Protein backbone atom coordinates (compact mmCIF):
# COMPACT_ATOMS: atom_id res chain seq x y z
CA UNK A 1 0.00 0.00 0.00
CA UNK A 2 2.35 2.62 -1.26
CA UNK A 3 -0.52 5.12 -1.43
CA UNK A 4 -0.89 5.37 2.30
CA UNK A 5 2.80 5.63 2.98
CA UNK A 6 3.13 8.43 0.42
CA UNK A 7 0.18 10.40 1.78
CA UNK A 8 1.95 10.70 5.13
CA UNK A 9 4.98 12.34 3.64
CA UNK A 10 3.34 14.98 1.41
CA UNK A 11 3.96 18.43 2.94
CA UNK A 12 0.63 19.92 3.90
CA UNK A 13 1.37 23.40 2.54
CA UNK A 14 1.88 22.44 -1.09
CA UNK A 15 -1.75 21.76 -1.88
CA UNK A 16 -3.09 25.25 -1.30
CA UNK A 17 -0.89 27.22 -3.68
CA UNK A 18 -3.79 28.25 -5.98
CA UNK A 19 -6.72 30.38 -5.03
CA UNK A 20 -9.29 27.98 -3.55
CA UNK A 21 -12.16 28.98 -5.87
CA UNK A 22 -10.23 28.58 -9.10
CA UNK A 23 -8.82 25.29 -7.86
CA UNK A 24 -12.28 24.08 -6.92
CA UNK A 25 -13.60 24.94 -10.36
CA UNK A 26 -10.72 23.21 -12.15
CA UNK A 27 -11.20 20.16 -10.00
CA UNK A 28 -14.90 20.12 -10.78
CA UNK A 29 -14.14 20.43 -14.50
CA UNK A 30 -11.57 17.62 -14.32
CA UNK A 31 -13.98 15.37 -12.52
CA UNK A 32 -16.82 16.10 -14.88
CA UNK A 33 -14.69 15.41 -17.96
CA UNK A 34 -13.46 12.19 -16.40
CA UNK A 35 -16.95 11.09 -15.42
CA UNK A 36 -18.37 11.87 -18.86
CA UNK A 37 -15.61 9.91 -20.58
CA UNK A 38 -16.17 6.89 -18.34
CA UNK A 39 -19.89 6.86 -19.06
CA UNK A 40 -19.93 7.94 -22.70
CA UNK A 41 -17.34 5.57 -24.17
CA UNK A 42 -19.09 2.25 -23.39
CA UNK A 43 -22.50 3.87 -23.79
CA UNK A 44 -21.80 5.04 -27.35
CA UNK A 45 -20.29 1.67 -28.27
CA UNK A 46 -23.38 -0.18 -27.05
CA UNK A 47 -25.75 2.27 -28.73
CA UNK A 48 -23.96 1.83 -32.03
CA UNK A 49 -23.27 -1.90 -31.96
CA UNK A 50 -26.07 -3.30 -29.83
CA UNK A 51 -29.12 -1.03 -29.87
CA UNK A 52 -28.84 0.13 -33.48
CA UNK A 53 -28.72 -3.46 -34.83
CA UNK A 54 -32.03 -4.15 -33.10
CA UNK A 55 -33.61 -1.14 -34.74
CA UNK A 56 -32.27 -2.33 -38.08
CA UNK A 57 -33.51 -5.88 -37.61
CA UNK A 58 -36.92 -4.46 -36.73
CA UNK A 59 -36.92 -2.22 -39.81
CA UNK A 60 -35.93 -5.12 -42.09
CA UNK A 61 -38.67 -7.30 -40.62
CA UNK A 62 -41.16 -4.83 -42.12
CA UNK A 63 -39.68 -5.07 -45.60
CA UNK A 64 -39.92 -7.62 -48.36
CA UNK A 65 -37.53 -10.17 -49.78
CA UNK A 66 -36.20 -9.47 -53.22
CA UNK A 67 -33.39 -10.61 -55.46
CA UNK A 68 -30.74 -7.97 -54.90
CA UNK A 69 -27.83 -7.22 -52.64
CA UNK A 70 -28.90 -6.84 -49.83
CA UNK A 71 -32.06 -8.85 -50.60
CA UNK A 72 -34.53 -6.48 -48.98
CA UNK A 73 -36.85 -3.88 -50.43
CA UNK A 74 -39.33 -1.42 -49.01
CA UNK A 75 -42.44 0.15 -50.47
CA UNK A 76 -41.82 3.52 -52.12
CA UNK A 77 -44.43 5.44 -50.13
CA UNK A 78 -45.61 5.79 -46.58
CA UNK A 79 -45.78 3.57 -44.54
CA UNK A 80 -42.88 1.94 -46.49
CA UNK A 81 -43.21 -1.38 -44.68
CA UNK A 82 -45.92 -3.81 -43.64
CA UNK A 83 -46.64 -6.44 -41.05
CA UNK A 84 -47.02 -9.12 -43.73
CA UNK A 85 -44.05 -11.12 -42.45
CA UNK A 86 -45.58 -11.26 -38.99
CA UNK A 87 -48.90 -12.40 -40.45
CA UNK A 88 -47.04 -15.12 -42.32
CA UNK A 89 -45.32 -16.31 -39.14
CA UNK A 90 -48.57 -16.36 -37.21
CA UNK A 91 -50.31 -18.44 -39.86
CA UNK A 92 -47.65 -20.96 -40.85
CA UNK A 93 -47.29 -24.14 -38.81
CA UNK A 94 -43.56 -24.36 -39.60
CA UNK A 95 -42.86 -21.21 -37.60
CA UNK A 96 -45.41 -21.84 -34.86
CA UNK A 97 -44.04 -25.36 -34.51
CA UNK A 98 -40.52 -23.93 -34.23
CA UNK A 99 -41.53 -21.61 -31.39
CA UNK A 100 -43.36 -24.41 -29.60
CA UNK A 101 -40.41 -26.80 -29.96
CA UNK A 102 -38.12 -24.14 -28.54
CA UNK A 103 -40.36 -23.41 -25.58
CA UNK A 104 -40.81 -27.12 -24.83
CA UNK A 105 -37.13 -28.07 -25.13
CA UNK A 106 -36.08 -25.01 -23.12
CA UNK A 107 -38.66 -25.60 -20.36
CA UNK A 108 -37.82 -29.28 -19.92
CA UNK A 109 -34.08 -28.55 -19.90
CA UNK A 110 -34.56 -25.75 -17.38
CA UNK A 111 -36.49 -28.16 -15.16
CA UNK A 112 -33.68 -30.72 -15.29
CA UNK A 113 -31.06 -28.05 -14.63
CA UNK A 114 -32.99 -27.06 -11.53
CA UNK A 115 -33.42 -30.68 -10.45
CA UNK A 116 -29.70 -31.42 -10.74
CA UNK A 117 -28.42 -27.94 -9.91
CA UNK A 118 -30.34 -27.15 -6.73
CA UNK A 119 -28.99 -30.00 -4.57
CA UNK A 120 -25.51 -29.32 -5.95
CA UNK A 121 -25.70 -25.63 -5.09
CA UNK A 122 -27.08 -26.44 -1.64
CA UNK A 123 -24.33 -28.98 -0.96
CA UNK A 124 -21.65 -26.51 -2.08
CA UNK A 125 -23.15 -23.70 0.02
CA UNK A 126 -23.21 -25.95 3.10
CA UNK A 127 -19.61 -27.10 2.70
CA UNK A 128 -16.75 -25.18 4.29
CA UNK A 129 -13.51 -23.42 3.48
CA UNK A 130 -11.21 -25.00 0.97
CA UNK A 131 -13.66 -27.82 0.12
CA UNK A 132 -16.16 -25.20 -0.95
CA UNK A 133 -13.63 -23.41 -3.12
CA UNK A 134 -12.64 -26.66 -4.77
CA UNK A 135 -16.27 -27.64 -5.42
CA UNK A 136 -16.98 -24.21 -6.88
CA UNK A 137 -13.92 -24.40 -9.11
CA UNK A 138 -15.18 -27.75 -10.40
CA UNK A 139 -18.48 -26.10 -11.42
CA UNK A 140 -16.78 -23.09 -12.97
CA UNK A 141 -14.27 -25.17 -14.94
CA UNK A 142 -16.84 -26.61 -17.40
CA UNK A 143 -18.30 -23.11 -17.70
CA UNK A 144 -14.92 -21.92 -19.00
CA UNK A 145 -14.23 -24.82 -21.33
CA UNK A 146 -15.60 -24.63 -24.83
CA UNK A 147 -19.27 -25.41 -24.95
CA UNK A 148 -18.98 -26.83 -28.44
CA UNK A 149 -16.37 -29.30 -27.23
CA UNK A 150 -18.48 -30.32 -24.25
CA UNK A 151 -21.40 -31.03 -26.55
CA UNK A 152 -19.02 -32.99 -28.76
CA UNK A 153 -17.90 -35.02 -25.71
CA UNK A 154 -21.50 -36.07 -25.08
CA UNK A 155 -21.93 -36.99 -28.74
CA UNK A 156 -19.12 -39.47 -28.21
CA UNK A 157 -20.83 -41.03 -25.20
CA UNK A 158 -24.24 -41.25 -26.84
CA UNK A 159 -23.04 -42.76 -30.11
CA UNK A 160 -24.03 -46.36 -30.73
CA UNK A 161 -20.76 -48.19 -30.11
CA UNK A 162 -19.44 -46.11 -27.20
CA UNK A 163 -18.82 -47.82 -23.84
CA UNK A 164 -21.57 -45.69 -22.31
CA UNK A 165 -24.21 -46.68 -24.84
CA UNK A 166 -23.05 -50.31 -24.85
CA UNK A 167 -23.11 -50.41 -21.05
CA UNK A 168 -26.65 -49.03 -20.93
CA UNK A 169 -27.68 -51.45 -23.68
CA UNK A 170 -26.26 -54.37 -21.70
CA UNK A 171 -28.17 -53.29 -18.58
CA UNK A 172 -31.31 -52.82 -20.63
CA UNK A 173 -31.03 -56.21 -22.34
CA UNK A 174 -30.47 -57.95 -19.01
CA UNK A 175 -33.22 -56.26 -17.04
CA UNK A 176 -36.10 -54.41 -18.67
CA UNK A 177 -35.98 -55.79 -22.15
CA UNK A 178 -38.48 -58.59 -22.72
CA UNK A 179 -38.22 -58.48 -26.51
CA UNK A 180 -35.23 -59.35 -28.71
CA UNK A 181 -31.88 -57.93 -27.43
CA UNK A 182 -30.83 -54.58 -28.84
CA UNK A 183 -27.44 -53.88 -30.40
CA UNK A 184 -27.48 -50.33 -29.08
CA UNK A 185 -29.95 -47.85 -27.66
CA UNK A 186 -30.51 -45.14 -30.27
CA UNK A 187 -29.73 -41.96 -28.35
CA UNK A 188 -28.16 -39.60 -30.86
CA UNK A 189 -30.46 -37.39 -32.92
CA UNK A 190 -33.35 -37.70 -30.49
CA UNK A 191 -35.27 -35.27 -28.30
CA UNK A 192 -33.51 -36.91 -25.36
CA UNK A 193 -30.11 -35.93 -26.78
CA UNK A 194 -31.14 -32.29 -27.28
CA UNK A 195 -32.51 -31.97 -23.75
CA UNK A 196 -29.42 -33.68 -22.34
CA UNK A 197 -27.15 -31.39 -24.35
CA UNK A 198 -28.92 -28.21 -23.26
CA UNK A 199 -29.11 -29.34 -19.63
CA UNK A 200 -25.43 -30.19 -19.65
CA UNK A 201 -24.31 -26.98 -21.32
CA UNK A 202 -26.38 -24.61 -19.22
CA UNK A 203 -26.10 -26.33 -15.81
CA UNK A 204 -23.36 -23.97 -14.51
CA UNK A 205 -25.69 -21.01 -15.24
CA UNK A 206 -28.18 -22.61 -12.84
CA UNK A 207 -25.75 -23.68 -10.13
CA UNK A 208 -23.87 -20.38 -9.78
CA UNK A 209 -26.80 -17.99 -9.08
CA UNK A 210 -28.42 -20.62 -6.84
CA UNK A 211 -25.19 -20.98 -4.92
CA UNK A 212 -24.91 -17.19 -4.57
CA UNK A 213 -28.39 -17.07 -3.00
CA UNK A 214 -28.04 -20.15 -0.80
CA UNK A 215 -24.62 -19.13 0.45
CA UNK A 216 -26.06 -15.96 2.00
CA UNK A 217 -28.87 -17.71 3.87
CA UNK A 218 -28.69 -17.59 7.61
CA UNK A 219 -28.34 -21.15 8.88
CA UNK A 220 -29.36 -20.10 12.39
CA UNK A 221 -32.97 -19.99 11.17
CA UNK A 222 -32.80 -23.70 10.30
CA UNK A 223 -31.12 -24.44 13.62
CA UNK A 224 -33.81 -22.54 15.49
CA UNK A 225 -36.50 -24.47 13.64
CA UNK A 226 -34.80 -27.75 14.53
CA UNK A 227 -34.44 -26.71 18.15
CA UNK A 228 -38.17 -26.11 18.15
CA UNK A 229 -38.68 -29.67 16.96
CA UNK A 230 -39.01 -29.48 13.17
CA UNK A 231 -37.33 -32.12 11.05
CA UNK A 232 -34.61 -31.19 8.53
CA UNK A 233 -36.98 -31.77 5.62
CA UNK A 234 -39.48 -29.36 7.15
CA UNK A 235 -36.73 -26.85 7.80
CA UNK A 236 -35.78 -27.06 4.16
CA UNK A 237 -39.36 -26.77 2.94
CA UNK A 238 -40.38 -23.92 5.24
CA UNK A 239 -37.17 -21.88 5.40
CA UNK A 240 -34.47 -22.66 2.82
CA UNK A 241 -36.71 -23.19 -0.19
CA UNK A 242 -38.84 -20.03 0.17
CA UNK A 243 -35.78 -17.89 0.86
CA UNK A 244 -34.00 -19.19 -2.21
CA UNK A 245 -36.80 -18.39 -4.66
CA UNK A 246 -35.00 -15.32 -6.10
CA UNK A 247 -32.03 -17.55 -6.92
CA UNK A 248 -34.28 -20.24 -8.41
CA UNK A 249 -35.97 -17.75 -10.70
CA UNK A 250 -32.76 -15.96 -11.69
CA UNK A 251 -31.07 -19.28 -12.49
CA UNK A 252 -34.09 -20.62 -14.38
CA UNK A 253 -34.33 -17.54 -16.55
CA UNK A 254 -30.59 -17.58 -17.15
CA UNK A 255 -31.03 -21.09 -18.57
CA UNK A 256 -34.42 -20.73 -20.22
CA UNK A 257 -33.90 -17.49 -22.18
CA UNK A 258 -30.73 -18.38 -24.10
CA UNK A 259 -31.87 -22.00 -24.45
CA UNK A 260 -34.94 -20.98 -26.48
CA UNK A 261 -32.65 -19.59 -29.17
CA UNK A 262 -30.23 -22.53 -29.08
CA UNK A 263 -28.89 -23.34 -32.51
CA UNK A 264 -25.81 -25.52 -32.18
CA UNK A 265 -27.03 -28.29 -29.85
CA UNK A 266 -30.18 -29.19 -31.83
CA UNK A 267 -28.31 -29.14 -35.12
CA UNK A 268 -25.63 -31.48 -33.76
CA UNK A 269 -27.71 -33.76 -31.54
CA UNK A 270 -31.33 -33.28 -32.53
CA UNK A 271 -33.80 -34.65 -35.03
CA UNK A 272 -34.05 -32.92 -38.39
CA UNK A 273 -37.84 -32.93 -38.39
CA UNK A 274 -38.48 -30.89 -35.24
CA UNK A 275 -36.31 -27.78 -35.54
CA UNK A 276 -36.07 -25.25 -32.74
CA UNK A 277 -36.71 -21.64 -33.71
CA UNK A 278 -32.99 -20.80 -33.85
CA UNK A 279 -32.57 -23.31 -36.68
CA UNK A 280 -35.62 -21.89 -38.44
CA UNK A 281 -34.14 -18.37 -38.29
CA UNK A 282 -30.80 -19.63 -39.54
CA UNK A 283 -32.32 -21.63 -42.43
CA UNK A 284 -34.63 -18.81 -43.42
CA UNK A 285 -31.69 -16.46 -43.46
CA UNK A 286 -28.92 -18.45 -45.09
CA UNK A 287 -30.74 -21.11 -47.14
CA UNK A 288 -33.84 -19.23 -48.30
CA UNK A 289 -32.13 -15.85 -48.18
CA UNK A 290 -35.37 -14.38 -46.89
CA UNK A 291 -33.93 -11.73 -44.59
CA UNK A 292 -37.23 -10.00 -43.76
CA UNK A 293 -38.90 -13.21 -42.58
CA UNK A 294 -35.79 -14.24 -40.63
CA UNK A 295 -35.77 -10.81 -38.98
CA UNK A 296 -39.46 -11.00 -38.18
CA UNK A 297 -39.00 -14.43 -36.54
CA UNK A 298 -36.14 -13.01 -34.46
CA UNK A 299 -38.15 -9.95 -33.42
CA UNK A 300 -41.13 -12.11 -32.49
CA UNK A 301 -38.85 -14.39 -30.44
CA UNK A 302 -37.49 -11.34 -28.67
CA UNK A 303 -41.01 -10.13 -27.91
CA UNK A 304 -41.86 -13.55 -26.48
CA UNK A 305 -38.80 -13.31 -24.27
CA UNK A 306 -39.55 -9.81 -22.96
CA UNK A 307 -41.61 -11.13 -20.06
CA UNK A 308 -39.00 -13.71 -18.92
CA UNK A 309 -36.28 -11.06 -19.31
CA UNK A 310 -38.22 -8.64 -17.12
CA UNK A 311 -38.79 -11.34 -14.52
CA UNK A 312 -35.08 -12.10 -14.60
CA UNK A 313 -34.10 -8.44 -14.17
CA UNK A 314 -36.52 -8.05 -11.28
CA UNK A 315 -35.24 -11.07 -9.36
CA UNK A 316 -31.65 -10.48 -10.34
CA UNK A 317 -31.67 -7.06 -8.70
CA UNK A 318 -33.46 -8.49 -5.69
CA UNK A 319 -30.94 -11.31 -5.44
CA UNK A 320 -28.19 -8.69 -5.53
CA UNK A 321 -29.74 -6.63 -2.78
CA UNK A 322 -30.55 -9.57 -0.49
Amino acid at each position, binding site marked *: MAGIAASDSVPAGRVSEDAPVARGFRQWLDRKAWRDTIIAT*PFLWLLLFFLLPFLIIFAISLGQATIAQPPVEFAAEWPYGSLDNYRLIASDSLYIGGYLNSLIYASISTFFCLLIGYPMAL*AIARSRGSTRNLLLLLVILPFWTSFLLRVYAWMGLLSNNSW*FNQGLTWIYNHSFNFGPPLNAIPMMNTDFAVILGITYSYLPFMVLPLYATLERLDLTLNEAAMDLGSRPVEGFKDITLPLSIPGIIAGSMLVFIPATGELVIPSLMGRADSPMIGRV*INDEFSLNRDWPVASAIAVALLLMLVVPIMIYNHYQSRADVA
Partner: protein
Amino acid sequence: MKQRSIFLLSCLLFGYAFFYIPIFSMIFFSFNKSRLATVWGGFSTEWYGKLFANDQVIAAALLSLKIALISATLATIFGTMAGMALARFRRFSGRTLFSGLVSAPLIMPEVITGLSMLLLFVSMRDLIGWPERNGFATITIAHITFTMSYISVVMQSRFSTLDVSLEEAAQDLGAKPLKVFFVITLPIVAPAIVSGFLLGFTISIDDLVITSFTSGPGANTLPMVIFSKVRLGLNPEINALASLIIAVVASGVIISTIYMAQAEKRRQRDMQMAVQANE
Protein backbone atom coordinates in the same frame (compact mmCIF):
# COMPACT_ATOMS: atom_id res chain seq x y z
CA MET B 1 -29.18 -34.19 9.54
CA LYS B 2 -27.08 -37.22 8.65
CA GLN B 3 -29.55 -38.59 6.13
CA ARG B 4 -29.76 -35.35 4.30
CA SER B 5 -26.00 -35.03 4.10
CA ILE B 6 -25.83 -38.41 2.39
CA PHE B 7 -28.55 -37.34 -0.01
CA LEU B 8 -26.80 -34.07 -0.82
CA LEU B 9 -23.47 -35.82 -1.19
CA SER B 10 -24.84 -38.28 -3.72
CA CYS B 11 -26.48 -35.43 -5.65
CA LEU B 12 -23.12 -33.70 -5.69
CA LEU B 13 -21.36 -36.82 -6.92
CA PHE B 14 -23.96 -37.33 -9.62
CA GLY B 15 -23.64 -33.71 -10.73
CA TYR B 16 -19.87 -33.85 -11.01
CA ALA B 17 -20.01 -37.22 -12.76
CA PHE B 18 -22.44 -35.66 -15.21
CA PHE B 19 -20.02 -32.77 -15.75
CA TYR B 20 -16.81 -34.71 -16.06
CA ILE B 21 -17.41 -38.26 -17.35
CA PRO B 22 -17.92 -37.14 -20.97
CA ILE B 23 -14.83 -34.94 -20.84
CA PHE B 24 -12.58 -37.64 -19.37
CA SER B 25 -13.96 -40.20 -21.78
CA MET B 26 -13.12 -37.91 -24.68
CA ILE B 27 -9.59 -37.27 -23.41
CA PHE B 28 -9.12 -41.02 -22.96
CA PHE B 29 -10.21 -41.76 -26.53
CA SER B 30 -7.98 -39.02 -27.95
CA PHE B 31 -5.13 -41.48 -27.31
CA ASN B 32 -6.95 -44.20 -29.22
CA LYS B 33 -5.18 -45.96 -32.06
CA SER B 34 -8.41 -46.91 -33.81
CA ARG B 35 -9.97 -44.76 -36.51
CA LEU B 36 -13.32 -45.27 -34.79
CA ALA B 37 -13.58 -42.45 -32.30
CA THR B 38 -15.27 -44.49 -29.56
CA VAL B 39 -13.89 -48.04 -29.80
CA TRP B 40 -10.59 -48.68 -28.03
CA GLY B 41 -7.83 -50.03 -30.27
CA GLY B 42 -4.66 -49.44 -28.28
CA PHE B 43 -2.62 -46.43 -27.18
CA SER B 44 -1.33 -43.92 -29.70
CA THR B 45 -0.55 -40.21 -30.00
CA GLU B 46 -0.99 -40.31 -33.75
CA TRP B 47 -3.97 -37.92 -33.77
CA TYR B 48 -2.05 -35.21 -31.94
CA GLY B 49 0.66 -35.43 -34.59
CA LYS B 50 -1.90 -35.19 -37.38
CA LEU B 51 -3.42 -32.19 -35.68
CA PHE B 52 -0.21 -30.18 -35.74
CA ALA B 53 0.26 -31.04 -39.40
CA ASN B 54 -3.23 -29.77 -40.26
CA ASP B 55 -2.78 -26.29 -41.74
CA GLN B 56 -6.47 -25.47 -41.70
CA VAL B 57 -6.69 -26.11 -37.96
CA ILE B 58 -3.52 -24.17 -37.20
CA ALA B 59 -4.65 -21.17 -39.27
CA ALA B 60 -8.05 -21.18 -37.60
CA ALA B 61 -6.48 -21.40 -34.16
CA LEU B 62 -4.21 -18.42 -34.92
CA LEU B 63 -7.14 -16.37 -36.20
CA SER B 64 -9.16 -17.21 -33.09
CA LEU B 65 -6.26 -16.24 -30.84
CA LYS B 66 -5.79 -12.93 -32.65
CA ILE B 67 -9.49 -12.07 -32.42
CA ALA B 68 -9.68 -13.11 -28.77
CA LEU B 69 -6.62 -11.07 -27.77
CA ILE B 70 -7.77 -7.88 -29.46
CA SER B 71 -11.41 -8.13 -28.51
CA ALA B 72 -10.69 -9.11 -24.91
CA THR B 73 -8.31 -6.17 -24.53
CA LEU B 74 -10.79 -3.61 -25.83
CA ALA B 75 -13.72 -5.26 -24.08
CA THR B 76 -11.78 -5.09 -20.81
CA ILE B 77 -11.29 -1.33 -21.26
CA PHE B 78 -14.94 -0.70 -22.14
CA GLY B 79 -16.22 -3.20 -19.58
CA THR B 80 -14.16 -1.62 -16.81
CA MET B 81 -15.55 1.79 -17.75
CA ALA B 82 -19.11 0.45 -17.85
CA GLY B 83 -18.75 -1.37 -14.54
CA MET B 84 -17.25 1.72 -12.93
CA ALA B 85 -20.00 3.96 -14.32
CA LEU B 86 -22.73 1.65 -13.01
CA ALA B 87 -21.15 1.20 -9.59
CA ARG B 88 -19.98 4.78 -9.01
CA PHE B 89 -22.32 7.15 -10.78
CA ARG B 90 -25.76 6.65 -9.31
CA ARG B 91 -27.48 9.25 -11.48
CA PHE B 92 -26.87 10.27 -15.05
CA SER B 93 -29.21 10.69 -17.97
CA GLY B 94 -29.94 7.41 -19.71
CA ARG B 95 -28.72 5.27 -16.82
CA THR B 96 -31.62 2.82 -17.10
CA LEU B 97 -31.06 2.39 -20.83
CA PHE B 98 -27.32 2.05 -20.25
CA SER B 99 -27.64 -0.65 -17.60
CA GLY B 100 -30.15 -2.47 -19.78
CA LEU B 101 -27.77 -2.37 -22.74
CA VAL B 102 -24.91 -3.62 -20.58
CA SER B 103 -26.80 -6.63 -19.25
CA ALA B 104 -28.86 -7.54 -22.33
CA PRO B 105 -26.14 -9.41 -24.26
CA LEU B 106 -25.72 -11.75 -21.29
CA ILE B 107 -29.08 -13.42 -21.76
CA MET B 108 -29.97 -12.54 -25.34
CA PRO B 109 -30.20 -15.67 -27.51
CA GLU B 110 -27.08 -15.65 -29.65
CA VAL B 111 -29.03 -16.15 -32.87
CA ILE B 112 -30.72 -12.79 -32.39
CA THR B 113 -27.52 -10.94 -31.48
CA GLY B 114 -25.63 -12.52 -34.37
CA LEU B 115 -28.30 -11.84 -36.97
CA SER B 116 -28.84 -8.25 -35.87
CA MET B 117 -25.11 -7.51 -35.94
CA LEU B 118 -24.77 -8.97 -39.39
CA LEU B 119 -27.62 -6.80 -40.60
CA LEU B 120 -25.92 -3.77 -39.04
CA PHE B 121 -22.70 -4.47 -40.92
CA VAL B 122 -24.59 -4.96 -44.18
CA SER B 123 -26.43 -1.67 -43.70
CA MET B 124 -23.21 0.13 -42.81
CA ARG B 125 -21.60 -1.19 -45.98
CA ASP B 126 -24.55 0.15 -47.95
CA LEU B 127 -24.37 3.59 -46.34
CA ILE B 128 -20.71 4.36 -45.69
CA GLY B 129 -18.88 1.61 -47.56
CA TRP B 130 -17.30 0.20 -44.40
CA PRO B 131 -16.62 -2.60 -43.47
CA GLU B 132 -15.72 -3.64 -47.00
CA ARG B 133 -16.40 -7.27 -46.27
CA ASN B 134 -17.18 -9.40 -43.26
CA GLY B 135 -14.27 -11.10 -41.60
CA PHE B 136 -11.70 -10.31 -38.97
CA ALA B 137 -12.89 -6.75 -38.23
CA THR B 138 -16.60 -7.52 -38.00
CA ILE B 139 -16.03 -10.61 -35.83
CA THR B 140 -13.83 -8.56 -33.50
CA ILE B 141 -16.42 -5.78 -33.17
CA ALA B 142 -19.14 -8.31 -32.41
CA HIS B 143 -16.97 -10.06 -29.82
CA ILE B 144 -16.08 -6.79 -28.08
CA THR B 145 -19.76 -5.93 -27.84
CA PHE B 146 -20.96 -9.07 -26.14
CA THR B 147 -17.88 -9.90 -24.05
CA MET B 148 -17.78 -6.42 -22.52
CA SER B 149 -21.08 -7.25 -20.80
CA TYR B 150 -19.54 -10.17 -18.93
CA ILE B 151 -16.53 -8.07 -17.99
CA SER B 152 -18.62 -5.14 -16.79
CA VAL B 153 -20.56 -7.47 -14.46
CA VAL B 154 -17.25 -8.55 -12.90
CA MET B 155 -16.01 -4.97 -12.67
CA GLN B 156 -19.27 -3.57 -11.35
CA SER B 157 -19.24 -5.96 -8.43
CA ARG B 158 -15.57 -5.15 -7.76
CA PHE B 159 -16.13 -1.38 -7.85
CA SER B 160 -19.22 -1.53 -5.65
CA THR B 161 -17.24 -3.17 -2.84
CA LEU B 162 -14.29 -0.85 -3.25
CA ASP B 163 -13.40 1.45 -0.36
CA VAL B 164 -13.31 4.98 -1.81
CA SER B 165 -11.44 6.60 1.09
CA LEU B 166 -8.03 6.14 -0.54
CA GLU B 167 -9.17 7.77 -3.75
CA GLU B 168 -10.81 10.61 -1.84
CA ALA B 169 -7.61 11.15 0.12
CA ALA B 170 -5.60 11.40 -3.10
CA GLN B 171 -8.17 13.77 -4.56
CA ASP B 172 -8.11 15.99 -1.49
CA LEU B 173 -4.36 16.17 -1.84
CA GLY B 174 -4.83 17.59 -5.34
CA ALA B 175 -4.38 14.58 -7.61
CA LYS B 176 -6.31 14.78 -10.88
CA PRO B 177 -8.93 12.10 -11.58
CA LEU B 178 -6.78 10.48 -14.26
CA LYS B 179 -3.86 10.25 -11.86
CA VAL B 180 -6.07 8.98 -9.03
CA PHE B 181 -7.34 6.28 -11.33
CA PHE B 182 -3.98 5.07 -12.58
CA VAL B 183 -2.07 5.40 -9.30
CA ILE B 184 -4.69 4.34 -6.75
CA THR B 185 -7.74 2.68 -8.30
CA LEU B 186 -6.16 0.59 -11.02
CA PRO B 187 -3.65 -1.26 -8.80
CA ILE B 188 -6.44 -2.13 -6.35
CA VAL B 189 -8.82 -3.52 -8.96
CA ALA B 190 -6.07 -5.13 -11.06
CA PRO B 191 -6.92 -8.74 -10.04
CA ALA B 192 -10.54 -8.21 -11.12
CA ILE B 193 -9.35 -6.73 -14.41
CA VAL B 194 -7.15 -9.76 -15.01
CA SER B 195 -10.03 -12.14 -14.35
CA GLY B 196 -12.33 -10.02 -16.52
CA PHE B 197 -9.83 -10.16 -19.35
CA LEU B 198 -9.48 -13.94 -19.04
CA LEU B 199 -13.26 -14.33 -19.02
CA GLY B 200 -13.57 -12.18 -22.13
CA PHE B 201 -10.76 -14.07 -23.82
CA THR B 202 -12.31 -17.51 -23.26
CA ILE B 203 -15.79 -16.37 -24.26
CA SER B 204 -14.42 -14.86 -27.44
CA ILE B 205 -12.29 -17.84 -28.39
CA ASP B 206 -15.20 -20.18 -27.69
CA ASP B 207 -17.99 -18.40 -29.54
CA LEU B 208 -19.56 -20.07 -32.54
CA VAL B 209 -23.00 -18.64 -33.34
CA ILE B 210 -22.32 -14.90 -33.32
CA THR B 211 -19.00 -15.54 -35.05
CA SER B 212 -20.61 -17.55 -37.84
CA PHE B 213 -23.10 -14.77 -38.50
CA THR B 214 -20.52 -11.99 -38.57
CA SER B 215 -17.79 -13.92 -40.37
CA GLY B 216 -17.13 -13.75 -44.07
CA PRO B 217 -15.38 -15.74 -46.78
CA GLY B 218 -12.00 -17.07 -45.71
CA ALA B 219 -12.32 -16.05 -42.06
CA ASN B 220 -12.80 -19.36 -40.27
CA THR B 221 -12.24 -19.39 -36.53
CA LEU B 222 -11.39 -22.53 -34.61
CA PRO B 223 -14.94 -23.21 -33.37
CA MET B 224 -16.21 -22.81 -36.94
CA VAL B 225 -13.72 -25.38 -38.23
CA ILE B 226 -14.53 -27.75 -35.35
CA PHE B 227 -18.24 -27.37 -35.98
CA SER B 228 -17.92 -28.11 -39.69
CA LYS B 229 -15.95 -31.28 -38.87
CA VAL B 230 -18.20 -32.39 -36.02
CA ARG B 231 -21.27 -32.08 -38.20
CA LEU B 232 -19.90 -34.89 -40.31
CA GLY B 233 -19.62 -37.15 -37.27
CA LEU B 234 -17.16 -38.18 -34.59
CA ASN B 235 -13.54 -37.78 -35.49
CA PRO B 236 -10.44 -38.85 -33.52
CA GLU B 237 -8.58 -35.72 -34.57
CA ILE B 238 -11.26 -33.59 -32.92
CA ASN B 239 -10.88 -35.72 -29.79
CA ALA B 240 -7.21 -34.74 -29.71
CA LEU B 241 -7.90 -31.07 -30.46
CA ALA B 242 -10.65 -30.89 -27.84
CA SER B 243 -8.46 -32.53 -25.20
CA LEU B 244 -5.66 -30.11 -25.94
CA ILE B 245 -7.93 -27.06 -25.69
CA ILE B 246 -9.54 -28.30 -22.51
CA ALA B 247 -6.14 -28.99 -20.94
CA VAL B 248 -4.93 -25.48 -21.77
CA VAL B 249 -8.10 -23.78 -20.54
CA ALA B 250 -8.28 -25.88 -17.38
CA SER B 251 -4.70 -25.14 -16.39
CA GLY B 252 -5.26 -21.45 -17.17
CA VAL B 253 -8.36 -21.32 -14.96
CA ILE B 254 -6.68 -23.23 -12.12
CA ILE B 255 -3.55 -21.08 -12.20
CA SER B 256 -5.51 -17.83 -12.34
CA THR B 257 -7.79 -18.97 -9.51
CA ILE B 258 -4.79 -19.69 -7.31
CA TYR B 259 -3.17 -16.38 -8.33
CA MET B 260 -6.38 -14.48 -7.59
CA ALA B 261 -6.80 -16.12 -4.18
CA GLN B 262 -3.22 -15.22 -3.28
CA ALA B 263 -3.65 -11.64 -4.51
CA GLU B 264 -6.78 -11.34 -2.38
CA LYS B 265 -4.94 -12.69 0.69
CA ARG B 266 -2.05 -10.31 0.10
CA ARG B 267 -4.44 -7.40 -0.29
CA GLN B 268 -6.15 -8.19 2.99
CA ARG B 269 -2.83 -8.58 4.76
CA ASP B 270 -1.62 -5.24 3.40
CA MET B 271 -4.83 -3.55 4.46
CA GLN B 272 -4.47 -4.95 7.94
CA MET B 273 -0.87 -3.84 8.18
CA ALA B 274 -1.80 -0.38 6.96
CA VAL B 275 -4.51 -0.10 9.58
CA GLN B 276 -2.12 -1.29 12.28
CA ALA B 277 0.56 1.16 11.12
CA ASN B 278 -1.88 4.05 11.40
CA GLU B 279 -2.88 3.18 14.95
